[in-house]
């Protein structure tokens, strides 16, 4: 197996995949988002509430590849407890790391950097961004509403 791929997977992804943050079904969340990629069948549910404009009780459940699962785990780790505005910024920061068109990321969360390797595998981009796009859509709508 070549180095790029090793890099992509090993640093962070297999870790998060095997030990995901906040994994499990949750009852009583105010919001449940369905992050679904019909092209590959991967599907995660994101559970959370909003309290005083902050994301709380964030967790996820579902099925997906190592990349999508790890990306969702990283999402949970980084967005839990964040105010909506800050969370949106992090969504954009994550996106900037994985989008091949985007300028090379300046310093961001170390967890994010691992996904920079996804740039080399455009077929997997969607895996990395699946849950992030879903929650970012939600957060944007919040911004507009409030």
């Amino acid at each position, binding site marked *: 197996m070549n180095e790029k791929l090793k890099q992509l997977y090993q640093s962070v992804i297999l870790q998060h995949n095997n030990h995901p943050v906040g994994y499990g079904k949750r009852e009583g969340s105010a919001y449940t988002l369905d992050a679904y990629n019909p092209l*590959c069948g991967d599907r995660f549910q994101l559970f959370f509430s909003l309290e005083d404009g902050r994301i709380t009780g964030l967790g996820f459940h579902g099925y997906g590849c190592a990349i999508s699962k790890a990306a969702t785990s990283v999402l949970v780790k980084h967005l839990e407890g964040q105010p909506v505005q800050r969370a949106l910024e992090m969504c954009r920061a994550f996106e900037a790391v994985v989008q091949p068109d985007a300028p090379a990321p300046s310093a961001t969360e170390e967890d994010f950097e691992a996904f920079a390797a996804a740039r080399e*595998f*455009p077929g997997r981009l969607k895996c990395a961004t699946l849950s992030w796009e879903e929650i970012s859509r939600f957060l944007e709508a919040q911004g507009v509403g409030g």
Partner: protein
Amino acid sequence: MPGLAPSEIRQQFPIFSHHPELAYLDNAATTQKPRAVIDGLAAFYEKQNANIHRGIYSLSAQATLQYEQVRRKVAALIGAPGPGSIVYTSGATAGINLVASSFLLPRLRPGDEVLISAMEHHANLIPWQMACRQAGARLGVIPMSPVGELDMAAFRQMLSGRVKMLAITHLSNTLGTINPVEEMTALAHRKGIPVLVDGAQSAAHLEIDVAGWGVDFFAFSGHKLFGPTGIGILYGRAEHLEAMQPVIFGGDMVRNVTFEETSFAAPPQRFEAGTTHIAGVIGLGCAVDFVSRLDRPAVRARVEALGQYARALLAEIPGLRFIGEARQAGAIVSFVLDRVHPHDLATFLSAEHIAVRAGHHCTQPIMQYYGIPGTTRASFTLYNTREEAERLAAQVREAQKFFT
């Protein structure tokens, strides 16, 4: 300005090395292909060929990126807001049909009206006629004057509250007329009427600005824009595409499928069922690159001047009558010649290596209007020369001598 001189441009088209004598004056039917398009297609098949969207391996991922990139190029060419409003079709005909059956038909009621013009190509006539028939609606035809200009006064009057669609050609493939689509769109929009512009002839030659004009739909074909056959574009305003149901069903246009029901993907994928013409998209991208590198207004001016030059030469031939003499016109010259049938003339010219088209040009109603069975049509584009126009006129004279 890179490659504006016709001789420079001409060198980029291999057909003229293979047929050095050929005066190809049938560009309204299809254009020739520059080296960059032919090589781009071959390179795709040789080095990158793979199916798209669902592929993870590198070839497929690369093909997908390139394929989606072409939407951006096309959007830039026609002034569309973004790639999401660019639907790949098999050609202008398919695009117009999609709008007629998926956008118009569901909102068309008995007594409603659809407006087209007296100079439409069958592709921008029959789909609306069929939709009207199915819905019990009426097809209104904006009349034209004998020189082939739309009657704008009549048009204004026809814009009633009953009209549910205006579908109009930008550049007539038979008459050469350039219609004031921006103005017509503004007038139609005042009454809330959506507008489709048939850009089959204009996309290669005129500046297109779909967002600036505010048109709702714009359809054209790659093969008339120096690109491959089998690929076309339908631009549609995002809210329309969003509201439209697909009419062709298959892979890659769905979200969820069970035996009981199916939910569809977002536009534009929703309208691109099955394996699309991937190589055609790549080739179209090369064609768009080719035209985008030119100084388009300068090319347009030169080509239209060439059309005028051809008209001036032909006008001196006794017994020759132009069909279509609009003031605003592209380089499409249709004519009839007393006592010489268009087909005999075209055969004669072919023997002299001059390729023109003869017949009704898929505009039978125009023929009915002028009471003629067909015309001979010479259509010019960026690789054509004054010398070709001169050969045309000289050989039309020879043909006249021969046949009469």
